């Protein structure tokens, strides 16, 4: 297989979401990833999503608290291009695998860290679960719901931000290494991942007029895009859009059966109370339409619309998968060693010259101990000694 990152060797010490998912994006573009787990396995193994975020890599188990384990890890470092870790700041130094130690041993190593908070921040030693960062970063307070106060974000947004920042930083450092010949310490955090998604809403603009903050402002009930959600027949929902990039051949109101409806420009010019009256009629009209038929009719007439479904439905639970998601190669079958035949998302980055690919399911803990440590000269007894749990 030839991926863009062919020959790049990554040691993945990370736990949780951001580290494993960030590494996945590199693994499936060709990087050779070895997950380094404690004896007994990654404690997050039972979590939802683990099988997806940890696929396309091999696994070794190493007890880094034992000298022999640390020595074996060092041998892996000698041949690695990248190491990824998600411990709290200071932990890797205590273990003897901090940036300074590993950089001295292998100056070409790119050392990537992704704790919950940046080193030196007053929050750096706070516990780092995703929802806690949602709270401390202010993201929960930004999300409107149907009650006042903060709203829990089901999607783990800080982790999902860091999952993109981590591979971006690693690749930038690898590109810089082509010039300098040296690796370096790349640092991001869940907190910075949270900041990533504030880009449209958090800006200080000295001379901005008051209206500047309106469009993306927080409001009760929730604002602009929320109003385009409509309930259809059977308590199901669709999200419509005013923009499709195409020229509609019938208006949305015509397709709803609202023949005498004003065109969008006339509508926007109506007094607010008349607009509201018409919106009530429109909401009523939606409820007489069957969801799939409505979506088809809208799309046939060049209106962008989506059924509000679960991700499981998008993958094909209870019917056909989302047709475009399937066309994108994003609905794939993976034979998982623990879960059996699974349907998961595919590879979301499409390089034409060097296509990415799934390199295999999640590995079992230590599945590749012999394959990886054997060629380094370790005997089966030695491998067992540093890679199994002390009872």
């Amino acid at each position: 297989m030839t991926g863009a990152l062919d020959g790049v060797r990554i040691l993945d010490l990370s736990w949780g979401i951001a580290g494993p998912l960030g590494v996945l994006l590199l693994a499936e573009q060709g990087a050779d990833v070895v997950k380094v787990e404690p004896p007994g396995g990654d404690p997050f193994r039972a979590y939802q999503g683990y099988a997806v975020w940890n696929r396309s890599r091999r696994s070794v188990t190493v007890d880094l608290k034992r000298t022999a384990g640390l020595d074996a890890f060092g041998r892996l470092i000698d041949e690695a291009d990248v190491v990824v870790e998600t411990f709290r700041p200071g932990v890797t130094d205590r273990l003897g695998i901090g940036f300074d130690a590993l950089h001295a041993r292998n100056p070409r190593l790119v050392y990537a860290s992704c704790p919950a908070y940046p080193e030196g921040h007053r929050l750096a030693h706070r516990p780092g679960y995703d929802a806690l960062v949602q709270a401390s970063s202010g993201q929960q307070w930004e999300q409107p719901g149907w009650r006042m106060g903060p709203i829990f974000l089901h999607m783990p947004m800080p982790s999902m931000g860091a999952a993109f920042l981590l591979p971006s930083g690693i690749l930038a450092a690898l590109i810089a290494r082509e010039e300098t010949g040296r690796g370096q310490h790349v640092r991001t955090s869940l907190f910075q991942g949270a900041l990533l998604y504030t880009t449209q809403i958090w800006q200080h603009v000295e001379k901005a007029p008051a209206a500047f903050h309106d469009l993306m402002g927080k409001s009760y009930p929730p604002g602009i895009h929320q109003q385009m959600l409509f309930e259809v027949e059977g308590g199901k929902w669709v999200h419509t859009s005013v923009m499709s990039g195409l020229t509609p051949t019938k208006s949305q109101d015509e397709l709803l059966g609202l023949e005498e409806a004003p065109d969008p420009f006339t509508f926007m010019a109506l007094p607010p109370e008349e607009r509201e009256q018409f919106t009530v009629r429109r909401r009523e009209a939606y409820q007489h339409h069957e969801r799939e038929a409505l979506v088809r009719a809208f799309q046939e007439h060049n209106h962008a619309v989506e059924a509000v479904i679960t991700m499981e439905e998008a993958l094909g639970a209870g019917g056909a998968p989302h047709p475009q998601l399937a066309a994108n190669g994003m609905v794939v079958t993976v034979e998982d060693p623990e879960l059996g035949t699974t349907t998961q998302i595919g590879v979301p980055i499409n390089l034409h010259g060097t296509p990415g690919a799934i390199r295999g399911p999640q590995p079992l803990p230590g599945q590749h101990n012999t394959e990886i440590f054997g060629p380094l000269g370790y005997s089966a007894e030695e491998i067992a000694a540093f890679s199994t749990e002390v009872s």
Partner: protein
Amino acid sequence: MYALEGVLLVDFGQYLAGPFGPMVIGDLGAEVIKVEPVTGDGMRLAGKPFFGCQRGKRGIAVDLKTPEGLEIALKLVSRADIVHHNMTAGVANKLGIGYEAAKSVNSDVVYCNTWAYGLEGPLARFGGLDPLYQAAAGLEHEAGAVHTGNPPLYYRFGMCDAANAMLSVVGCLAALYHQRRTGEGQELWTSLLDGGAVFSSDAVLANGEPLPRPRLDAGLHGIDACYRMYETQDGWIQIAAVQEREWIALCAALGVAELADDARFAVADLRRENRAVLETLLGERFLTRTSLSWTRALDDAGVPNEVPVDTHGGELVLFDADNERLGLVAEYEHPIMGTMRQFGELVGFSETPARVHGPPPLVGQHTREIMGWLGYTDEQTAALRDAGVITWPGDEYPWTI
């Protein structure tokens, strides 16, 4: 030097999912030239979302539908390491800046298109806005707890645009690394639809059936009695008592130590099964004290927790001393808007420091210097402006930002 020093990205994108990736690549040290229509990026009207995706770029305003404008665009492409845009199906080819055209003037270019839906397929001809993909990827269904009878809920962050952009950053840099090692450029693409799906990538079917995922309660507080927010006497607190010892400590700190011995809550699975009754029992306790009083008590007891912060629309984050000291805030001067702040360094490097960010460009702010760099004389540049092929801010500036 910066991590991506010497890398030139030419950004033909408009709106959000196109321009945001180039902005992030610029933050990593690349030079980014924004090629904007002489009528301005369609997103300028929106204010904040426009600013959020444009800082640090230099801007040239060109009418790509004129032969002279196309020539300027191809000169830029010929010097680029990366070409990036989010035009809908067929538009770039029609303009003459599709991949084949780009390759003909720059054989090893990395060429990226951030689509709405994808390259090919039943909906590929559509453009579309972020909410469609929050719907399609199950995000609105889970965010609103539709399974409880609630309406769906749109995430206000508009983050499918950002996901598409960030996938394009990873893709472009992977392709650029490959190009640096082999001399081979290539075409790549990402989409809003796939970006949304990454956010829901914990969804898995086993033998066609959904594996259970944690779900929100109807009040949108959290996904487990021990991993949710509770209302306090004066506000809220988020707890994450995930491990067994944290659960026991939580009960003790709340003054209900007996719950730790209650058979209904003996293990995590039972606590999930009896979630509603447990949430009521814990909820009653949290209402008896203030948030700060609880956070101190829980800290002392070793229970992970945070008080959700109201940052007043980010202002408290952007003027926070720790964030300023650590470079997490960027400040720059905009010719019209004055001092601006936004998040700063999202990735730090020990040897190739973060770039000093500039403001978003005005329409055509750097047209003249870029034309000079491309080899046009001042006379040629002036004539092209008179002909309406290019523009830059003069006595009249018809845009508000």
